[in-house]
């Protein structure tokens, strides 16, 4: 069965209320903008969203936030969307703040079948409260649990129809990690090519991680987000 679809809602059919969903991107850079918009049009609620940021006010994941579809956010920098603070103040959203490197490594560990890892990052700070501490060779580490999810929505530059992916500049960020850490992985790309068209030495995400491929309908340009 082909992994390629042209229907966003078809691509998102596996997303259900209560799911944990990984969403790629560093702000809007490398975010799967078409899939996020598709999610705003889908009748789901109580989602846990794992993403570096929850978009910007009224943009990207910010729309999903304002629709009250997000029960919990896990990320490293919610500051970029002031609506997150307002919702949190009103008790309408749970938040889990992780250092950016810890978020990235938790996804890598999740995708690699590990339960978690010990890191020095955050040890002795307010973000270590409630976390297990362990001394290894005289250095204090804290335990961070791996992250696994039901669905990952990611952005790549090109896919072949098998699902091999390559990325574009700093739009790569969390996307290759998220591709490994969810039961279902949906990718939107600028271009879909035939198998063999991508150089095997350059493939960043091998096809076995990817379930569904869709052509991006919204792209980030110098002038902002535009429909293609």
């Amino acid at each position, binding site marked *: 069965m082909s992994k390629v679809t042209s229907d966003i809602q078809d691509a998102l059919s596996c997303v259900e209320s209560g799911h944990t969903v990984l969403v790629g991107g560093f702000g809007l850079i490398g975010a799967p903008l078409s899939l996020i918009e598709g999610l705003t049009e889908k009748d789901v609620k109580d989602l846990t969203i794992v993403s570096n940021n929850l978009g910007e006010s009224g943009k990207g994941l910010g729309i999903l936030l304002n629709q009250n579809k997000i029960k919990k956010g896990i990320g490293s920098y919610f500051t970029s969307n002031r609506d997150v603070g307002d919702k949190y103040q009103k008790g309408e959203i749970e938040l889990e703040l992780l*250092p950016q490197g810890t978020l990235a490594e938790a996804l890598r560990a999740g995708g690699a079948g590990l339960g978690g890892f010990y890191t020095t990052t955050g040890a002795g700070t307010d973000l270590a409260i409630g976390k297990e501490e362990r001394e290894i060779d005289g250095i204090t580490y804290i335990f961070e649990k791996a992250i696994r999810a039901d669905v990952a929505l990611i952005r790549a530059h090109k896919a072949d129809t098998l699902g091999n992916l390559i990325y574009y500049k700093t739009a790569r960020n969390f996307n*290759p990690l998220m591709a490994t850490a969810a039961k279902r992985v949906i990718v939107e790309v600028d271009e879909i090519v035939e198998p063999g068209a991508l150089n095997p030495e350059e493939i960043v995400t091998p096809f076995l991680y990817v379930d569904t491929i869709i052509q991006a309908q919204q792209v980030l340009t110098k002038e902002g987000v535009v429909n293609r």
Partner: protein
Amino acid sequence: MTTMSKTDMQHLIAKRVAAELEGPCVVNLGIGIPTLVAEYMNAADIYMHTENGLLGVTDVEEVDIDPNLVNAGKLPVGEAIGASYFNSSDSFAMIRGGHVDVAILGALQVDQTGVIANWAVPGKNIMGVGGAMDLLVGAKKVFVTMSHTSKDGSSKLLKKCIYPITSTRSVDMIFTELAVFEVVDKQLRLVELMPGVTIEEVKAKTEADFLS
């Protein structure tokens, strides 16, 4: 007493930090004054790392701006010759693993042992940490740039940080518009007065104990 505009002050600090960098080295620049440091670095063998996934950051002409090529402050940047891209986990492995030579960061407060606070203010919702904690624990050297005092004139170099700390690790050097300090054995030591500044002024505006 020294009076200068905020911009002049920031550039003064940035220029002084840049003079401290010797190639070959890999430097990670934070947001704010650290971003300005790039303007004053002229050694060809100083390479810049940005934690969103690029080693080999350069500035970019307006006409060449690519919306998908940005630094950690989401500002457009360019790609140096010899640059490479990598995912966020690899990027932070470079940082935590001690492969980045210098991190230059802003701070809200520094205590007299060199421990800094730069990610949260009490009484406000804590909404973001980004890469600050990773850079603090992992960079081989950490340089801090900041104004010496707050808007109300109070010292930002304190006996103890009031705001939540970023790491238990002490930074290596602190650069303000008044002075340069280094941290040796968990003690601040004054190494240089900025032009026109007297030791009396620094003492009057510094709560932290320091050696001079």
